[in-house]
């Protein structure tokens, strides 16, 4: 049982990092980011490639974070002035474009073959089994990320971001450089996702482009919505709840014998889809402070 709980906790921890980042994007700043998995992928691949080339783990992770932040700036500058739904579609397209690049730039990323044998950092603590030590690493990351995000949202920066989320025209009228603030939020969230990606790569020791599909992004959306989009604490327990609930679907295999692994995965995706719809209807917080928005927010469009 302990092995299972350790595995569960490790994966929940990595997912929490993703959800925290997305919460900064959407919950705090109102950015409809449908391409979150791209930052995750950048962190994972950078970390994998650099550690295999001999770089120390933290350096590799840091490079992944820098790459993700740069990517977020690139995407942001090009698209943040647009309507929410256009921004959403473009970020979705961006993450798929990145996946296409990872798949086809064989010389750099080994394409569809994936990168196996990614080394685990600091795996040898005396007296502690490897997977428990790794869980410790993940938990440290989660605590740091949580504190950082909480501090950010309570700071003047956070207040400005929330003001921009609720009414960007007013914020602009008050002289705030809305674009710069949005880019900052995007960067922080992207960095968190990159850290998650790095931790993931070193945990499963194998990365391949197929792991980084939009499914991950929407899974994160689901976790965020369950916990309530504006709250960091919500991000944590929303993620935990999502994991626990979905684990229950595994027992369906005992009840319905026709279900093999891929069909079981399909069933889980249906549950996520239903969940997204149900939660969107019942969680009024979407669209900012309970006011469903009918007019799209634009900046100078």
């Amino acid at each position, binding site marked *: 049982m302990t092995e299972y709980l350790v595995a569960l906790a490790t994966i929940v921890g990595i997912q929490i990092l993703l959800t925290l980042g997305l919460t900064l994007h959407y919950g705090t700043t109102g950015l409809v980011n449908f391409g979150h998995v791209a930052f995750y992928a950048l962190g994972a691949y950078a970390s994998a490639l650099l550690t295999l080339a001999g770089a120390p783990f933290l350096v590799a992770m840091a490079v992944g974070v820098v790459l993700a932040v740069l990517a977020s700036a690139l995407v942001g500058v090009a698209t943040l002035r647009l309507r929410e739904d256009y921004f959403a579609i473009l970020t979705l397209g961006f993450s798929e474009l990145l996946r296409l690049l990872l798949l086809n730039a064989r010389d750099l990323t080994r394409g569809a073959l994936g990168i196996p044998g990614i080394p685990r950092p600091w795996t040898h603590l005396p007296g502690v089994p490897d997977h428990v030590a790794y869980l410790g690493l993940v938990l440290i990351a989660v605590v740091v990320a949580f504190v950082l995000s909480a501090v950010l949202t309570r700071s003047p920066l956070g207040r400005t971001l929330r003001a921009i989320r609720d009414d960007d025209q007013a914020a602009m009228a008050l002289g705030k450089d809305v674009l710069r603030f949005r880019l900052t939020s995007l960067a922080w969230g992207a960095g968190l996702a990159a850290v998650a990606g790095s931790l993931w790569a070193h945990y499963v020791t194998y990365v391949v482009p*197929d792991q980084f599909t939009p499914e991950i992004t929407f899974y994160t959306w689901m976790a965020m919505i369950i916990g309530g989009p504006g709250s960091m604490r919500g991000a944590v327990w929303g993620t935990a709840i999502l994991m626990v609930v979905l684990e229950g679907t595994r027992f369906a295999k005992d009840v319905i014998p026709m279900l093999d692994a891929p069909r079981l995965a399909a069933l889980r995706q249906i549950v996520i889809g239903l969940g997204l719809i149900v939660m969107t209807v019942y969680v009024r917080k979407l669209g900012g402070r309970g006011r469903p928005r009918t007019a799209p927010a634009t900046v100078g469009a």
Partner: protein
Amino acid sequence: MRLNRRQFLATSLAGSAVALAGRRVAHAQAETLRIGVLTPLTGGGAVYGTTMSRMYTLLAEEINKAGGVAGKQIQLFTEDDQTNPDAGVRGARKLVDVNKVHAILGTWSSAVTLAVAPIAVQARIPQFCVSSSPVISTFKDDDFLYRTAYSQAVIASVYATTAQKLGFKTAALLILNNPYGIGLGDSFPDRFAKVGGQVTGKVIYNPNQSSYRSEIQQALAGKPDVILFGGYTPDGIQVFKEWFQLGLGGTWMGPGFAFDQKFVQGIGAQAAEGIIVVEGAPNLQSSAYKNADKLFRAAHKEEADFFAAMAYDHLMVVALSVLAAKGDTAGDAIKANIRKVTNPPGKVVGSWAEAAPAVRAGEKINYEGASSAIDFDDNGDAKTDFGVYRIKAGKWALDRVIKFGELQTS
């Protein structure tokens, strides 16, 4: 399309449950030979993985009934790698971390084998695969990775030889973007050139593209005599369809596992007429094959094909190695004995009934397998023979057999 973390946990839980059960019967766990079966039960390789899994089960039963391996019963742990390296890695992690298997058998897709191999190497346990990527030969596996199937480098020679015999001078390659396809793409041009042929075009395609028309048109601009296909059945049907609908010339040639009955049904017997199929040929004369065939027919009413034969060989080699190591199931001990039981000189054996007493008596044996002579070279590769077929009226008709020794171009 998969929710990776979910399935990771699913396999971990299942494995933990087994481990939990095992912990209660601690002494029994220590007395089993734990074999991890990691094959495709779903996905593109499902037909072959299922066959192999069945053969492992049948042979394990036979050996267990005869008293097991040095008193230890064989315990099989089966994971579905879904013909997908991601699922394969998760399955391997569970087999190694939770079930603590002594060997991993059965990875079919090269991508899966190559993703799983580092895990086996790190755990210092042997892995037996049926994958064809040439990279596997030279993979830094500390001699833990073995394969009973042909390398794409070798079958490239078969393709080249066959093309030459049939009078084809020019070829185009249509290959899948994965280790097996790319391996073929790397190996074929040189070998074809050695017999006077020329590759005039190449397409490396990804599955699930919305169209291949332009790429195929460009690759076939040189009007090749033969089109060499390096992919699997589902994408093969789509690529063939695009080619057919372009009305371009040439004869198709490719591997048996792509041009199976499903492929023929998918494109229609008429369109399939004349396609050249190359596949590994089992070692039909050996007592090992006869035994494997008997076992398989009794349970499944079908003859043992090349993949069933290879599965038989995997488990036989591991079991005999453990027996030769006097019951030591440590990976290093098994590894040390593999070539001792498979390579000449020694008493030629093929079945457990023949081989076990000889090993117990301390004799040196030479296991001749069901899929080939099973003499592993320094890279851990075996040398297999090949059958060349042509599709006639929707079925494979044997054209000729090409023995490994005949291949000058490899």
